[in-house]
């Protein structure tokens, strides 16, 4: 049995403890930060970190985010646009739930139609929410656009187009080619200034979730390539710290 006061306690053992202390002192603050941030990330859904939006100007410019001009679709004399969150707006009024992004919009005698990320929203010609169709109702998946030709509504995806009748709740193959229908789609345009200003009041603008920031800090990506290498270095130091700690424990025994 050896201990550090006995003559047999080697010089190398003392050096090991010395370096263990030095390493421990060097990394202990970062180690605590990594542990706490790792804990937060592990429990992110429970802590709702992805729902906490940070929109500090400095942070946004650090991430290279700039406010894009507000855009929407003008159909049947009305502007349909999205607030970037989960609502569809029609001429300044919140109209219906709609998961971003708003992909396309069209109008026929039945009303206005907005294609959201996972559903097709139907509105009255005055912009009142009628109902929503999704894949579970039999709507084709991966839809990219809407077109109205001869008052008929067509759903377009990459390779197929289908005619959709919301009144009869039926979907049938389109009698014309996808590219021809795609050309009939309404193009997205910049919103008039009055609506854009109103939208700015409704929406929070670009933001970054707290989860993303913590994840980037935890991995070092927040500080670019240098930060990643720095965290790698801390990882190596933690490994050495564990090994020197183990050696110290063995020496004590």
């Amino acid at each position, binding site marked *: 049995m050896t201990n550090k006061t006995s003559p047999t306690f080697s010089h190398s053992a003392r050096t090991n403890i010395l370096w263990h202390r030095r390493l421990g002192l060097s990394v202990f603050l970062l180690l605590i930060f990594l542990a706490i941030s790792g804990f937060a990330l592990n429990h992110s*859904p429970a802590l709702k970190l992805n729902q906490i939006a940070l929109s500090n100007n400095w942070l946004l410019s650090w991430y290279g985010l700039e406010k894009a001009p507000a855009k929407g679709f003008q159909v049947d004399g009305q502007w349909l646009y999205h607030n970037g969150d989960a609502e569809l707006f029609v001429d300044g009024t919140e109209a*219906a*739930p709609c998961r971003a992004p708003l992909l396309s919009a069209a109008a026929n005698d039945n009303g206005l139609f907005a294609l959201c990320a996972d559903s097709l929203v139907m509105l*009255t010609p005055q912009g*009142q*929410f*009628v*109902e*929503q169709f999704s*894949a*579970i*109702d*039999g709507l084709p998946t991966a839809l990219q656009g809407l077109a109205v030709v001869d008052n008929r509504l067509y759903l377009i995806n990459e390779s197929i187009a289908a005619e959709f009748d919301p*009144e*009869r*709740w039926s979907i049938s193959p389109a009698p014309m080619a996808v590219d021809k229908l795609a050309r009939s789609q309404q193009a997205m345009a910049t919103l008039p200034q009055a609506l854009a200003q109103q939208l700015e009041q409704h929406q929070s603008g670009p933001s970054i979730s707290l989860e993303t920031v913590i994840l980037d800090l935890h991995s070092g990506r927040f500080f670019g390539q240098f930060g990643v290498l720095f965290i790698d270095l801390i990882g190596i130091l933690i490994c050495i710290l564990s090994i020197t700690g183990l050696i110290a424990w063995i020496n004590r025994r």
Partner: protein
Amino acid sequence: MRRQTSAAADRYPAAAFLSLIIGLTLSMTSLAAATTAARGVFQSGPDFIAECFASQPSEKKTLWLTDELREQVSKILGHPIAGLRVRYHQNGSKTAWILEEIGKEMPITIGVMVDNHTIQQVKILAYRESRGGEVRYPAYTRQYQGASLKPDLSLSQSIDGITGATLSVWAVNKVAALALYFDGVVTQQRTDA
């Protein structure tokens, strides 16, 4: 025995610590797998309708929500309903409804088949919450069979809850009551016509 285990842990602390870490990791993995399994689309709307009516053809119909109906629906759901109309399928006294209600944060898509004002089948078509997915099991949904609507707009029979899925259970209860209410409305409309 306990002393032996404790002695072994004292003797091989590293091994004991390693076992603890492996045990915790395995537990966390099982928990994550269970959470993932709770979410999903289990049946499409058209498939549910086909299952409800088997080989009999059903008619696609629409129920427009008047102000009076919306008021009653708000009482059942506890909040206003979105949209101006609800679609359903009908064949004789049978109606089938595909309705959505939010459990905790995400909507649950629920199929309900009603025959002669009593529930024949409740099925969870899509579940999007991270917890509480047990409501989709037939052992739970079978409880709704035979339920009808009481004058106070509640279900005629009590439904046993599920620990940890209270909000999802409430959502299914509300949708079951709503489907029965809608069924009563369309039956009345047909009688009046």
